[in-house]
């Protein structure tokens, strides 16, 4: 049987919903990974000793094990201890925390690299250490790693496909559902790939705008 793209139009709605879920998961998880990454970096560098070690262990867990396994653990595993999360929430938490750990590594390096004259100038004005970090050092650190964080966000978009495994009908699962009904695997996977590519382009455009703004404030 040859290729037949006429199987696709009846599933426009299914695919559109898939695209929307993929965008929703990606945006929410990206925000979680960004702000979570900042918080994790500040705790790792300046937090109390008591919380530093557990955090380091959790970071290691998120970086050293497969994301798919983490999603299973959060969605299927936590139920056993009474935490029953909707699949979307479990997916966002898994993806978000996973990438928060990666972002945190980037941000930590950047915080350490901010000229110490910046902290000194802020302290000289009377800011506390915490105020100086939040107002002066961290914004500059984050600004300096916007491009690699952007790369992480693109990777996050692609990894959002893994969330299909816990039943969120995002783009990949939507394509699979359509294939289950039509047996047109090539056509639907190709269309899904094209749609990922388009979302990717949109994301890159947004990231480029953010980078341009950040460059001005150097």
């Amino acid at each position, binding site marked *: 049987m040859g290729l037949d793209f006429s199987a696709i139009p009846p599933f426009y709605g299914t695919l559109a919903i898939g695209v929307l879920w993929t965008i929703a998961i990606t945006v929410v998880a990206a925000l979680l990974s960004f702000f979570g990454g900042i918080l994790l970096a500040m705790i790792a560098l300046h937090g109390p000793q008591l919380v530093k070690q557990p955090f380091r262990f959790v970071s290691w867990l998120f970086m050293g094990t497969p994301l798919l396994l983490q999603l299973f653990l959060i969605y299927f595993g936590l139920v056993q201890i009474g935490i029953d999360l909707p699949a979307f929430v479990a997916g966002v938490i898994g993806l978000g925390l996973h990438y928060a750990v990666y972002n945190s590594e980037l941000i930590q390096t950047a915080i350490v690299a901010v000229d110490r004259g*910046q902290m000194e100038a802020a*302290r000289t004005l009377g800011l506390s250490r915490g*105020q100086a970090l939040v107002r002066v050092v961290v914004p500059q650190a984050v600004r300096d790693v916007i491009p690699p964080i952007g790369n992480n966000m693109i990777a996050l978009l692609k990894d959002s496909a893994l969330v299909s495994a816990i039943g969120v009908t995002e783009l990949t699962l939507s394509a699979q559902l359509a294939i289950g009904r039509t047996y047109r695997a090539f056509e639907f996977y190709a269309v899904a790939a094209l749609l990922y590519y388009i979302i990717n382009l949109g994301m890159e455009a947004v990231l480029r705008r953010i980078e341009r703004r950040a460059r001005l404030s150097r």
Partner: protein
Amino acid sequence: MTKPPFVEIRHAQKSYGSLEVLKDISLTVERGQIVAIIGPSGSGKSTLLRAINDLDPLSSGEVWLDGVQVNEALPHRQYEKHINDMRQQVGMVFQHFNLFPHLTVRQNVTMAPKLLKKISDKEADALAEEQLDHVGMLERIDYYPSQLSGGQKQRVAIARALAMKPKLMLFDEATSALDPELVEEVNQVMKKLAEEHMTMIIVTHEMDFAASVCDRVIFMDKGVVVEEGPPDLVFRNPTQERTRNFLRKHLEGAK
């Protein structure tokens, strides 16, 4: 009892490991006085200046400002609050400006007053305009630091410090990093502050500027105050051999 000096440093001693950088320095500055600290590189000028707001804590000795001990031994939390209060009263200007590059000129000036004095946005804008006008930088109020020349950056840094309405201003080689043609605009601002009777302690390599602006000159070498007095005396008739050597070398270097 007589009134205590405005700024008093008592037996300041500071070591980095086995290197003794400040050796039992005592000095006072009266309100409204302008004091220059000169001396060869590595003699401890910055360390002394930075001890005044406890940016580089002393190993031993005391720093007093307006009747309050800056480096009072307090439990950590109390000390943090105390030192933040003290630092609000002391403006500091650095050789490399240390402007906040991610903030506009306006935000550089208003950040600390907004955060620490809880002034409104409107008051903050008025304050920024007033302080930037004072240093001739009002036109660049919405620029980023990266869009300014060195001299302009330093003038903004001075405005940022003045926006906290400090009692005392510290300058650590404020013009050393500037191209020669940009030095004068910063010196003009400092002269203006002198005319307004701001108390200032100025670490500088510019002997002409020190001579024309300062009430008193302190010559430091190897962690001690070798000589101090009015500029006329220290520059024209130094009593110490080390001062004479330094000034001679400096004059040769300037040629």
